[in-house]
């Protein structure tokens, strides 16, 4: 080897040594450039259309039923004393026993509360899409995959995060919820999508019948030949259109997810799922499985959808109970992370924002307490709060007021991107609603 060749090969080898550690599972060459504020984010889609009046403004019956009783029924998340009387949101007959608080310190004290934000849609699906896409997507149809990239895809494409580290846990199959784990945008799409479970179905009676008794195949001796033969068959298939793209779990990730599913069926049968102390609603059982997902996978991003408060269309009493339970659910998740998932404790940010508010004036339906119900379509439906707490989030900070709106719900996308270190990439992608910015930049 002459001197020139020696120098050339040595240089190439050195370059390879520098580059190799940064080749990420996604195929991305270099890791995201931004510094992370935390390694994990839990984002709660809270929780089916919440009025400011009964949540952050703590007016209980005072701004809805011509009754002066006021008070805070979200006392894990917000500072404030509960209503002194007319308790209907708890457990037991008539809901007269409020659920005991879980957190010793409210999330408001632990983090930052945006008291008055602007929602961009008065509907559920538009609202959920705005929270996950950071865009109003005016042409977004129901029962249609998101048109613009979701936060999952941003993180996976620009952050090199594996599929099994991004999870969307839905409380049901309704409202097109299962469609929200990735968009149909040509530059992003399924290959950067998140894993999804609707646990009340996956691990409920239907799943128990058709998913729980899966035969276990040996990864090398049996699954490898299956995948090899499938690959041959797929290559032979001369299909002119597009075939469904997988979200890109590796065979190892698939095995891990199957093992998780098996564990969940066992825990479900044994009654040992990490459910909240009170678990009498679909939202609360969903949160129990979300805790299990976090404990098993330690995701970079876990999005949890709740929607129980939407019962307000026909029952204000049920709405109060669901709102009280949504607070209980968020507190349980936060408590579970701090006390049962050491890898995420102290290294996680939790964010909760409703997808929309509800009307200022009621509809004609009265419930069992003769209280009026509320839909969501007027300007009051575009008023929501936002809250975040955890690593590197300023504590005990309250921003904005009823007369001073600060923040848009679409802000949550660049906020999560900033926490996980891909803010610049998300902003420069060019798909966010104009005026959208990280909530950290609004502090």
């Amino acid at each position, binding site marked *: 080897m002459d001197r020139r060749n020696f120098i050339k090969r040595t240089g190439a080898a050195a370059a390879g040594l520098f580059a190799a550690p940064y080749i990420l599972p996604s195929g991305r060459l270099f890791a995201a450039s931004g510094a992370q504020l935390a390694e994990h984010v839990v984002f709660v889609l809270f929780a089916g259309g919440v009025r400011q009046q009964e949540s952050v403004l703590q007016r209980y019956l005072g701004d809805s039923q011509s009754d002066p009783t006021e008070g805070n029924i979200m006392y894990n998340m917000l500072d404030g004393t509960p209503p002194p009387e007319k308790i209907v949101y708890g457990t037991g007959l008539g809901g007269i026993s409020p659920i005991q608080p879980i957190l010793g310190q409210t999330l408001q004290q632990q983090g930052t509360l945006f008291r008055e934000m602007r929602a961009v849609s008065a509907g559920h699906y538009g609202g959920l899409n705005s929270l996950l896409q950071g865009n109003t997507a005016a042409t977004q149809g129901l029962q249609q995959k998101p048109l613009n990239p979701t936060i999952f895809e941003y993180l996976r494409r620009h952050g090199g995060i594996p599929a099994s580290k991004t999870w969307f846990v839905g409380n049901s199959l309704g409202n097109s919820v299962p469609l929200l784990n990735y968009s149909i945008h040509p530059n992003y799409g399924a290959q950067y999508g998140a894993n*999804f479970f609707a646990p009340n179905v996956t691990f409920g009676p239907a799943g128990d019948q058709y998913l729980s008794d899966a035969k276990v195949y040996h990864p090398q001796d049996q699954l490898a030949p299956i995948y090899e033969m499938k690959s041959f068959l797929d290559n032979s298939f001369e299909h002119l259109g597009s075939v469904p793209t997988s979200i890109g779990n590796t065979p190892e990730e698939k095995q891990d997810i199957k093992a998780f599913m098996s564990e969940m069926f066992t825990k479900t049968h044994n009654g040992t799922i990490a459910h909240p102390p009170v678990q009498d609603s679909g939202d609360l059982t969903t949160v129990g499985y979300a805790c299990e997902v976090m404990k098993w996978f330690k995701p970079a991003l876990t999005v949890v959808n709740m929607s129980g408060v939407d019962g307000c269309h026909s029952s204000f009493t049920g709405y109060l109970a669901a709102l009280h339970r949504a607070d209980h659910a968020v507190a349980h998740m936060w408590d579970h992370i701090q006390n049962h998932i050491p890898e995420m404790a102290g290294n996680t940010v939790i964010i909760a924002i409703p997808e929309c508010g509800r009307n200022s004036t009621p509809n004609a339906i009265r419930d069992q307490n003769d209280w009026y119900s509320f839909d969501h379509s007027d300007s009051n439906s575009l008023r929501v709060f936002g809250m975040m707490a955890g690593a590197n989030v300023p504590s005990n900070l309250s921003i904005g007021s009823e007369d001073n709106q600060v923040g848009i719900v679409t802000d949550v996308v660049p906020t999560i991107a900033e926490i996980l270190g891909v803010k610049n990439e998300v902003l420069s992608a060019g798909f966010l609603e104009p005026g959208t910015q990280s909530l950290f930049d609004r502090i």
Partner: protein
Amino acid sequence: MQLNTTSILRSTAMLLLVAVLATGCKKDLFLYELDTVDLDLHDGDKDREKSNQEYAAILHANLFQTALSPNDLYKIDQCIQSIGDKQLAREVIISNFMNKPGVQIPTADEMNADVNAFIIATYNRFLVRNPTEAEKTWFRNKITADPNVTPELIYFSFALSEEYLFY
């Protein structure tokens, strides 16, 4: 005498007519026949994706030779919807079916007794077409070279294939 002459002429004319008809041009008879040709396209021209319920119904019929009730199909549809990775969802459902009694799969001995027939029958059962010579060769080589490849694994791979998602 007049009658005799007329009779003779008439008889002669009849004889001539018969002779002409009997010896006239005979049209050639051509018989066209076709060789047996497989008119199916290679992939059966499948361009429509099965719904979850269609997939489950056909899969169950292929594996058990029996039909599922609409209620069961609805529940399987819900299960598939509840899992984000659809391929993983199908894998788990196939695995569950494989674990149930009544699944109709040939034994390894039956497969090895006539590998070609097994391959053709499997393509017919799952993909509703005949395999090409290349496909037959590939699977024949795979079956003979890899002792781990059983009829069950082959059925699994067919049920998981992209072509099986279309009709």
